[in-house]
C-alpha cells in the first residue's frame, strides 16, 4: 500500500501538500489540471523529489529517506525510457543488474518479460527501430523484471494512437492482476480511468481534492472537477435531456 502522511514538498516557491492512503493491488488513476502536482506526487513516491515534512510509507516500510533505488517502486515516463544505444535486451537487462552482468537465469527472465509484453524475439533490435508503442512495451518489460510491487506511470501512452493505447491499457491491467501490482497512472482521459482503474485521485491547487472509486469521483458535482472535465462523463440522472 501507499501511505502519505502529511507530506510537504517545495519546488521553487510552490508548496505541495499530500495526505493519501491507497490500498495495494489496485490501479489508481491520478487526474487534475496541469501544474496541480500529478507528476510531483509520483516523483515524491519514486524519490526524485525530496520530502520536506511528513512521512511516506510504502508497503509497510518507512521510505521517506530511502534512495530511488531502495524503494519498492518502478517508473515509466512518457519518453526517454530507453537508452538509445543499447539493444532491447540490454535495456531490459539493466533492470536486473546495473552493470549488465547477467546470470543464465536472469537472461531467461529478460526473455520471458519480453514475451509477456508481446515482444518475443525483439531482443537484438535497437530502440530507434521500434515504434512508440513497442518502446513503451520494452520499458514495461524492464519494470516487470525489476519485480517492484508499485508501478508509477506518468502519462506513458500519450504519444500512442488510440488502438495502441487501448492495447497497452489492456496489457497493463492484465499484468497488474497476474503480478498483484499497485499501479498509479497519471492520465487526462476519463475513459482510461473507467477502463482500468478502481480508484481516482483528483488533484486541485497542489493538494488532493477528491478521492474515491471511479464512479464516485466522476459523478461528483464539485466545481473544480466539472471545470476540468468540461462536460460530465457519466450523465447525471437529475438532468433531463431535451
Amino acid at each position, binding site marked *: 500500500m501507499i501511505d502519505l502522511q502529511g507530506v510537504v514538498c517545495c519546488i521553487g516557491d510552490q508548496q505541495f501538500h499530500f495526505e493519501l492512503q491507497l490500498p495495494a493491488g489496485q490501479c489508481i488513476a491520478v487526474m487534475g489540471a496541469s501544474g496541480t502536482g500529478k507528476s510531483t506526487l509520483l516523483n515524491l513516491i519514486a524519490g526524485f523529489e525530496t520530502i520536506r515534512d511528513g512521512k511516506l510509507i510504502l508497503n509497510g516500510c518507512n521510505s521517506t529517506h530511502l534512495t530511488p*533505488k531502495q524503494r519498492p517502486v518502478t517508473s515509466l515516463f512518457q519518453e526517454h525510457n530507453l537508452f538509445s544505444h543499447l539493444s532491447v535486451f540490454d535495456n531490459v537487462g539493466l533492470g536486473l543488474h546495473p552493470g549488465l552482468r547477467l546470470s543464465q537465469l536472469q537472461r531467461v527472465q529478460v526473455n520471458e518479460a519480453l514475451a509477456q509484453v508481446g515482444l518475443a524475439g525483439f531482443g537484438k533490435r535497437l530502440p530507434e527501430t521500434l515504434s512508440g508503442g513497442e518502446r513503451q512495451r520494452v520499458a514495461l518489460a524492464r519494470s516487470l523484471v525489476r519485480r517492484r510491487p508499485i508501478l508509477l506511470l506518468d502519462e506513458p501512452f500519450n504519444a500512442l494512437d488510440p488502438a495502441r493505447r487501448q492495447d497497452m491499457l489492456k496489457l497493463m491491467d492484465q499484468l497488474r492482476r497476474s503480478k498483484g501490482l499497485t499501479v498509479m497512472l497519471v492520465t487526462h482521459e476519463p475513459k482510461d480511468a473507467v477502463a482500468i482503474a478502481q480508484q481516482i485521485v483528483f488533484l486541485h491547487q497542489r493538494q488532493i481534492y477528491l478521492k474515491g472509486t471511479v464512479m464516485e469521483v466522476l459523478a461528483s458535482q464539485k466545481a473544480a472537477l466539472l471545470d476540468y472535465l468540461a462536460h460530465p462523463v457519466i450523465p447525471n440522472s437529475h438532468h433531463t435531456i431535451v
Partner: protein
Amino acid sequence: MLSLYRIYIGNNIQKFWMAFSIRIGLAGHGWWLLSLASLAVVLVPIIVALGTLLWHSQTLMFRNLTDVYIWRVVWFSWLQASISTLLSLLLAIPIARALARRQHFAGRSLLLRCFSLALVVPTLVAVHGMILLHGHQGWINQLMISLNSSGYHYLYGLGGILLAHVFFNMPLAARIVLQRLETIAPETWRLASQLGLSSKDIWKHIEWPHLRTVLLPLTGLIFTLCFTSFAIVMTLGGGPQATTLEVAIYQALRFAFDLDQAVLLSLLQLVCCGLILWVGLRLGRPLQLCPSTQQRCQRPDLHSVAGRIFDGWMLFLAVLLVLLPLLAIVVNGSNDYWHVVLDDKRLWYAAGNSLWIALNSALLTVILAMGLLLARRHLQLRLGWHRAATALEWSGSVILAFPPLVLGAGLFLALRSWTDVFALSLYLVVLVNTLMGLPFALHILSAPYLQLARQYDRLCSSLGLAGWHRFRLLEWPRLRHPLAFSLALTAAMSAGDLGVIALFGTPDVSTLPLLMYQRLGSYQGEAASVTALVLLGLCLGLFIVLELGLRGKHD
C-alpha cells in the same frame, strides 16, 4: 506568321523564366543578392590571395618538397597539435563532469564565466601570463627556488606551447562537453537513480553515448586551432625544433621573402587542416558554442567519497590552469609603470585602432554569416538542395584552414601595384579578421537560425513576412542571444589578434597587440605588463558589454 511565332516563343520564354524564378524563389526576394555578395566577400579574397602568390612564385615550387626543413616543420605541427588536442580533451572531460556533478560549489559560476572568457583572452596576453607564471623568473620557479629546489625550465619549446594551448582550448572543450551533458533528459537521470547505476555505468551508458557525437567535431575544431596557432608558437616556440607551418610561413614572408616557400607551406597547411575539418564535420554534428540555459538534474552519483575527491582535484586543476595565468597578468600589470604607460599617446592611439578594427570586423562578420545562412536556408528548406546548402556553409569554415598570414600577404601583393597598401593596412586587417571570425559566427548562429527557419518558414511565407520585417519581428527577438554572443566573441577576438598586423604594421599604424609585442621584444617588461592589462581589459570589456548589452533580458 513569323511575328506570331515570335510572340509564341517570347511568351514561352517569359513563362519559363517566371516558372524558374518562382521555383528558385527569385521573385520579389533580394535574398540571393545578399547571399551572393557574402559569398563573394568570402571567396574573392582567398582566390585573389592564393592566385597572386602562385603568380609571383616563379620557379616550380615542388622542388622544395625534398627539403628536410619543411618535413620537420610539418611533423612538428602535427605533433604539437595532436598532443595539445589530446591533453585539452583529456582534461576537459573530467573537469566538465566535475562541473556537472557539483552544481553547488562556491566558485562554479565564476569558473564557468572564466571558461567562456578564455576564448577571448588575446593570445599574446595569455602567453605573457604563461611567462609570468612558468618562466625563468616566474612564480612557480621562484617558489621552487625558495623551497631549495633547483628551478625548472620547461616553458620554451613544446612544453610551453602545450601549456598555452591547453589554457585556451581546455575551457572551450569543457564548456561544450558540459553543455552536452546538460542536454541529457531529466527522465534519464531518474531512470539511472531508480536502476542504481554507478558512476562507471553512468559514464558507459549515458554520458559517453551522449558525448560521442560532439567529440569528433570538437577534436577537429581544437586540432585546427592548435595547428594554425601563430602568436603562441612564435613567442614560446621558434627555432628549427619548434616551428609550425604558420610560423614558418611568417618567417618565409617577413625575413626571407621567399614566396615559393610561403605558397608551398600554405598549401601544405590547407591540405592538413582541410582534412581534419572535413573528417570532424562529416562524421559529427555541429557544435553548440553559444552558452545555453542549464537545467537542474538529479544525478545519483553525487555522494561517493572517491567521486568527491576526484571532482575536487579536477576543479582545483582547472583553477590552476585557467585562473592563475589571468591572476598573474592582473597582479603584474598593476605595477608602478602604469602612469607612464597610460600617459603615452601611442597607447591610446593603438587602443583606438584596435577598437575600430574590432567593431567593424565583428559587424561585418555577423552580416556575412547571416547572408550565408539566408542562402543556406533558401537552398535547403525551399529548394531542397541539401548538398548545395552544406557546401555553402562549408565555404565559411574553409577559412579556418587558411592561414591569415597568407591571406594578408597575397592581398598585399595583389594590391601593391594598384595603391599604397600601407595606407590601406587597417582595412586589410578588418577584412582578414572578418574572415577569421566567420567560422565562429557560423558555428554559433547556424543551428538556432535553421531551427527557427524550420519552425516558422511556412508561416512566414503564408503571412508574407519577409526581408527586413521578418528579421525585425522574428529573427532578431528569437536570435538575439546567439547574435549578441557572436558579435561579442568576434569583436573581442579581433581586438586581441596579432596575426596580420605583424606583417604590415608600421610605426604609424599600430594596434594594442602589436604595441605589446614590440614592448615585449624590446625588453620593456613592466610597460608590456601594463599594456597587456589594458589589452585584456579592452577585450573582456568589449565582450561583456556587447554580449550583455545586446542579448536582452530573455534567452
